[in-house]
């Protein structure tokens, strides 16, 4: 796949169809992958990577990149296309300046899960019949492939590309995923149990803002938490209770806009399951206002910017679930 992508990218560069390519490159470790922009065939040859660790959603980078001179080639996984569409809808990316090549998605691997097996010094991985062969500085290790995949890939919602200019490989379908299982499990706990769960989780937050920085729905020119006029400006946590405010508001601001790409939880250094907050909103929206998948199209009205005269009352919260 990587070879084919590099070749196609070189071709498009050579044709002058695009003048840049956004993809991924490797850092210090095999699993240390970051999105990167390539401008020449040489750069592509040297550094372009696409493998089991290239999970990062590059669509957010296009907010800036698509406003530059010339067209950029973006390789988008199915989940990334939802984010891209949502950004197009909100006028955050310039669609005409992006040439989208849809590529098959994951499941991608979670290096932390491999390390949790006591496997360290990872140099590279290979998936052979769903057995993961891990090349380490200490020799080869194996583990079942599906035990090493990212949580967000384990609950994948769709293998379909909702926007692209060309497609590499087969087009997939929207999946019947079990992504709301954990939300439901929490809903069925008592309020005290839920509170304890979230208290444990949110108190781990160090306000590094990784979730905010990676989130393709969080593309504000200036975040409300950085704005002195918002009344909620704050930089770093001085008290764990601050996290209530930050994470609730962040989830609320992306409600109806979050495509459930799962990047927030993937990048959280404290492993807080932040995506559950977003999924709670998605689940509520689906059940109260009708099925809605953000990013599926570029024209529908976001559920929070819409209403029906016979919408349920807020008291519905009191009437359902476990107290």
């Amino acid at each position, binding site marked *: 796949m990587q070879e084919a992508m590099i070749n196609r990218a070189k071709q498009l560069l050579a044709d002058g169809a695009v003048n840049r390519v956004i993809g991924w490159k490797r850092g210090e470790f095999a699993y240390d992958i970051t999105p990167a922009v390539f401008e020449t065939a040489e750069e592509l040859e040297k550094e372009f990577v696409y493998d089991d660790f290239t999970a990062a959603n590059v669509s957010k980078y296009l907010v800036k990149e698509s*406003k530059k001179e010339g067209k950029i080639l973006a390789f988008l996984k199915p989940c990334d296309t939802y984010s891209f569409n949502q950004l197009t809808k*909100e*006028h955050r990316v310039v669609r005409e300046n992006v040439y989208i090549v849809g590529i098959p998605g994951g499941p991608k691997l979670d290096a932390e899960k491999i390390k949790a097996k006591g496997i360290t010094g990872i140099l590279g991985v290979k998936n052979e019949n769903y057995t993961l062969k891990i090349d380490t500085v200490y020799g080869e290790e194996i583990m079942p492939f599906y035990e090493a995949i990212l949580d967000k890939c384990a609950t994948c919602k769709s293998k379909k590309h909702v926007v692209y200019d060309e497609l590499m490989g087969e087009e997939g379908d929207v999946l019947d995923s079990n992504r709301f299982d954990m939300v439901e499990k929490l809903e069925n706990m008592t309020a005290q149990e839920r509170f304890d769960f979230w208290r444990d989780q949110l108190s781990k937050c160090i306000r590094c803002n990784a979730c905010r920085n990676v989130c393709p729905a969080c593309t504000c*020119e200036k*975040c*409300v938490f950085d*704005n002195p*006029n918002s*009344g909620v400006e704050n930089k770093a946590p001085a008290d764990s209770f601050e996290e209530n405010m930050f994470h609730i508001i962040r989830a609320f601001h*992306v409600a109806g806009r979050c495509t459930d790409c799962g990047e927030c939880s993937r990048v959280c250094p404290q492993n807080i399951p932040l995506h559950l907050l977003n999924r709670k909103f998605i689940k509520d929206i689906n059940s109260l206002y009708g099925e809605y998948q953000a990013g599926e199209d570029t024209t529908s009205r976001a559920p929070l910017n819409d209403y029906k005269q016979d919408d349920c009352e807020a008291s519905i919260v009191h009437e359902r679930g476990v107290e």
Partner: protein
Amino acid sequence: MQRIGVFVCHCGTNIAATVDVKSVAEALGHEPGVVISQDYQYMCSESGQNLVKNAIKEHNLTGVVVCSCSPRMHENTFRKAAAAAGLNPYLVEIANIREQCSWIHKDIASATEKAIILGKAAVAKVHLNAPLTAGESPVAKRALVIGGGIAGIQTALDIAEAGFEVDIVEKNPTIGGKMAQIDKTFPTLDCAACILTPKMVEASQNEKITIHSFSEVTDVKGFVGNFTVTIKKKARFVDETKCTGCGLCTEKCPMKKVPNEFNMGLDNRTAIYIPFAQAVPKVATIDPNFCMMMKTGKCGVCSKVCSVGAIDYKQEDRFIEQKYGAIVVATGFNPIKLDKYDEFAYNQCPDVVTSLELERLMNAAGPNGGTLLRPSDKTHPHKIVFVQCVGSRCDDSKGKPYCSKICCMYTAKHAMLIREKYPDTEVYVFYIDVRTPGKNFDEFYRRAVEQYNVHYIKGMVGKVTPRSDGKIDVQASDLLANEQLHIDADMVVLAAAIEPDKTARPLATMLTTQMDTNDFFTEAHPKLRPVESATAGIFLSGACQGPKDIPETVAQASAAAAKAIGLLVKDSITCNPCVAHSDELMCNGCSSCEKVCPYGAITYIDKEFKMPDRTIAVRRVASVNPAVCQGCGACTVACPSGAMDLNGFSNNQIMAEVDAICK
């Protein structure tokens, strides 16, 4: 540094009896920024206001907090007082310690404590108040009236009378509307045409009035004082400026089998037609669905006989754009379709007619020249049954939940006219209630019963069945006598409910005005602003706002005209300064705010920004039109970055109040 003055009102004993006003003034005097804190018996009195004014001058105050009654009561009073003393009126805040404190709490200690907290919240807020200046927006001195029925005509005449240009847009080839189809009017029984047609002529001859007949509004942009409207002048295939209305073409046209809308399809007209003799403008129109020339290219008779060469088969729709300061909606009503009412056999039997059809049947210019004959066999009916509330006051989906209001009276009129002209005809009226509120209305109804011996029967008609002998079997219940009735009628007349014209809903969307679930336009206030819509600059005239009879329609039409004139006489309008505004540096241009704005006040512009690295970036940013924004604040919450904020109720101000209360 802020210099805030606090003024605590006793309101006689209204506040002072439950709130210790002295300690409130004392406590608030210690709040940061407060330089003077006083109490007074009646702060709203002239001497109370002088106290405020003098303090503003003496202490050079930057903000004023008045602890008194509800801001809904005296906010304006104190704002004016502040302005008179040279302080921006929007630097005044009211703490409501009467309605929401002294009047509802009995315990002096807790009421005083709460009053202090409310005062602190107001002080905290006023710290963040910014001086606001109301903007001004110019007014285009021209009005648009949409709909050319009696409502539109009256409104246009009144506005023109005041000296302003008015355009009437009427979708039909002639103005006149429903009233032109009516035979006589209640409760005076004078002829509708005799009172309407002079008004139509007056409108056409008034040099301030332009009539766009056979036209539609297709686009509305702008806001109060400054609307830009696109009007589609539909092709009528006759040059309006040349046609003299001689009618020769309509006589010669070979296509004579077109259902005549004006006579409710009860007779036929030609493909080129003038709806009725007194039409305004009296100009022929070709119906392209029936014209042989248009359909087959063979004929051209009208073109040949037209001595002025007005016929133009190639005419196309034209669009004109015009600026208006005010728009009056007068789109009127229609009787509902009775397709769903199988029990009344309306679709099965030609002798079951609606009341409007009866009007035409009785009209001298109608299909029978004014002689009442059954549509089926042109014989004289001897027994007529009127059914009231067909589709009105209906709780199922077939009809309308409201009372159509005019049916009781026109049915009494019909019954009376028939009994007067044809004393040998028996008339039965089935009703739920007879509703006759209106000047001389009940007297009129009683005349129908007492002098004309119309049989009024309280009860509903269950089934109407046409019989093979030409009679119609009417099955009904008499609720007062508690018996079932069968009447072998010659004709049945259904008082069909009326509903707003179908063009009203799309028009409301264009105008961003509100409608109720029945598609009647909603007035800005049901009691106090009955002829204005909630959208500034849009006024309501006639039945588009709710069922109405002619006198009410005319009264409302003149009222709407007065409101429109009140707007047009101004050179500019003062805008509400408590409007939303977007911080361009923070705006993402995501369009969330636009989606929740009920007034269409937000647009997006591409704007160049100098970036920190000295490059120029073009960004899409929201821009609020302060003349259109009404200050609800929906956009401020839809905005994720907080770029959108509301003057007078900013994020900071409300947050400061929250903090002060929760401290």
